[in-house]
């Protein structure tokens, strides 16, 4: 079993899939504000019709990257291409890219209907066509009955829908969404996540969605581009990034994980007392082991499983499952996910399958 150790491996796979019908190519984009480097050498391809999420904490550069694609910032170096044309040299109003802004940025002096009609109107679309397109767009987001309202008189969720209609009415090739759900409360947010995803399938427009919420990213995206301190940590499908994180940061940022540090010598990985066989070159190594990959040891376990004894220190209830913190005999503190009925308490014999320990890149 030969697993790539580096994130480049995953990126190469992902981009080769995207290249078949890549809509957007971001090529070695870097951005500095004064002396402060916000983005380093970002390269990313986005496929036609894809729902890509740029995930990162605040300050990771995700909004800057979005603003470069929209045209509100200029990259310090690198290029952005869309559909075979250079995009980053065009002013924002000549790009077939529309944005749903973080606080929606609806025009306060225009009604819902006039907000949605804004794009077609400045494009000098005939009045009859504007009306049908605006009606269509408002119907799509179920806001027809609010057409005459002013933005200040409707709720946040409704404003969000109007912002979506205002962008989609222009039939962009690419829709950018800058944390559009962050202002909504948890329930509405979950509902909008599903609605947005459904809508994206329906209209077939490529979405680039920016968020700091890893759960949101997992629920909605075809692929996630994880950005950290201005660099891409990993670009992969949610399931892949979860089960095969490329870096220690990716493993920790998305879901919970146990980071095991050790060394490989002659095909054997040693992390404190634990050891198992690997096909990795010699040298220091880190593994990510998800809490759900650790289980109670049974008499008839897989023959190559790694065993250790542990004592329960602490536990937290998470609905269907429990996250239990244990102190292993080798001194590590590890987190184990058990079913809530499992009731892992006191001392226990635990094990994991070495295949579940994923080698990850450490920060340089």
């Amino acid at each position, binding site marked *: 079993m030969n697993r790539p150790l580096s994130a480049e491996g995953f990126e190469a796979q992902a981009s080769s899939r995207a290249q078949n019908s890549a809509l957007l190519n971001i090529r070695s984009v870097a951005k500095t504000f004064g002396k402060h480097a916000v983005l380093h050498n970002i390269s990313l391809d986005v496929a036609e019709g894809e729902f890509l999420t740029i995930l990162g904490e605040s300050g990771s550069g995700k909004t800057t990257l979005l603003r470069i694609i*929209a*045209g*509100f910032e200029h990259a310090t170096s690198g290029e952005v291409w869309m559909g075979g044309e250079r995009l980053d040299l065009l*002013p*924002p*109003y000549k790009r077939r*890219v*529309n*944005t749903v*802004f*973080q*606080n929606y*940025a*609806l*025009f*306060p*002096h225009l009604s819902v209907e006039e907000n949605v009609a*804004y*794009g077609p109107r*400045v*494009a000098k679309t005939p009045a009859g066509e504007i009306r049908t397109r605006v009606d269509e767009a408002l119907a799509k987001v179920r806001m027809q009955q609010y057409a005459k309202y002013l933005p*200040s*008189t409707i709720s946040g969720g409704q404003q969000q829908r109007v912002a979506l209609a*205002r*962008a989609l009415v*222009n039939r962009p090739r690419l829709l950018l969404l800058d944390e559009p759900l962050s202002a909504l409360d948890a329930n509405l947010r979950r509902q909008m996540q599903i609605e947005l995803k459904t809508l994206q399938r329906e209209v077939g427009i490529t979405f680039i969605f920016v968020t700091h919420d890893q759960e949101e990213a997992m629920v909605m995206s075809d692929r996630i581009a994880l950005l950290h301190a201005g660099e891409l940590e990993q670009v992969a499908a949610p399931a892949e990034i979860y089960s095969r994180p490329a870096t220690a940061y990716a493993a920790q940022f998305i879901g919970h994980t146990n980071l095991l540090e050790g060394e490989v010598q002659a095909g054997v990985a040693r992390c404190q007392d634990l050891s198992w066989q690997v096909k990795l070159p010699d040298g220091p190594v880190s593994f990510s082991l998800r809490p759900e990959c650790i289980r109670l040891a049974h008499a008839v376990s897989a023959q190559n499983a790694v065993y250790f004894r542990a004592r329960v220190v602490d536990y937290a209830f998470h609905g269907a499952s429990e996250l239990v913190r244990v102190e292993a005999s080798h001194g590590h503190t590890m987190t184990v996910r058990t079913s809530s009925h499992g009731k892992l308490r006191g001392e226990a014999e635990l094990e994991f399958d070495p295949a579940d320990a994923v080698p990850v890149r450490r920060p340089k």
Partner: protein
Amino acid sequence: MGLLVNAITYNRAPKLLAAYAALVFAFLYLPIVVLIVYSFNGHGVGGFPPRDLTLDWYRQLFTDDAIWASVVNSLVVAIASVCIALALGIPAGLALDRANFPGKGIFRRLVLLPLVLPGIITGLSLLLLFREADVRLSLVTVILGHGTALISIATTEVFAGLQKLDRAHEEASLDLGATYWQTFWRVTLPNLKLSIIGAALLIFTLSMDEIAVSFFLIGRDNTLPLEIWGRLRRGITPEINAISTLIFVFSLLAIIVWYRLRMRAEAVDNELLV
């Protein structure tokens, strides 16, 4: 904290406070009340208490061509000053908010200078300039004087309006395909409407009762304040009381309109915050 102190003082000495307040208000408004009352006094400006209330002075006023000519002059000056101050002040406000250029700090202070500069300095310096340039003094020179002195009002009002404006609105407009110019007309300007109307009203009012700058730059045609001042040198007439009363009423109306616009602007802001 301030509220608490007020509450305590108020509870301890409500009568004293009320008397003090009444005194302050009397000091502020008694002269105006006297002026208004005597504009209806049948015995002119003399005599106490005012007797035989009459509208004669108003009748006399309405047939006084010199006064009305000066009113027209003042209106012309005020409207022209509003146009000049807005035409130069709005771009200056935009530049202060948007552009980054060397010497911006100095530019800001220079633009605001006329606001704090005594009118006598503005008037005198412009007079010397016009003399040097051989320009004959007339209403045009007064207009130029008022216009330049009041640019700073337009600049500050527009600048304050722009500071409150969410830049995301303009970005949204560009994003939706509007050029910079279309964005300015369709998004920036409509949202500055209240600031601009407010500035215009303020400039208009200030120009209407401006004396210092006008005094230096006036030609043969008087503005209303200078006409009144000229007549005062020949003694106070009840007619002056009458015209002053009218000015007071119009100023009051202007202030009310301006205030209501402000309230509306704030109401819009508050709604946006929710």
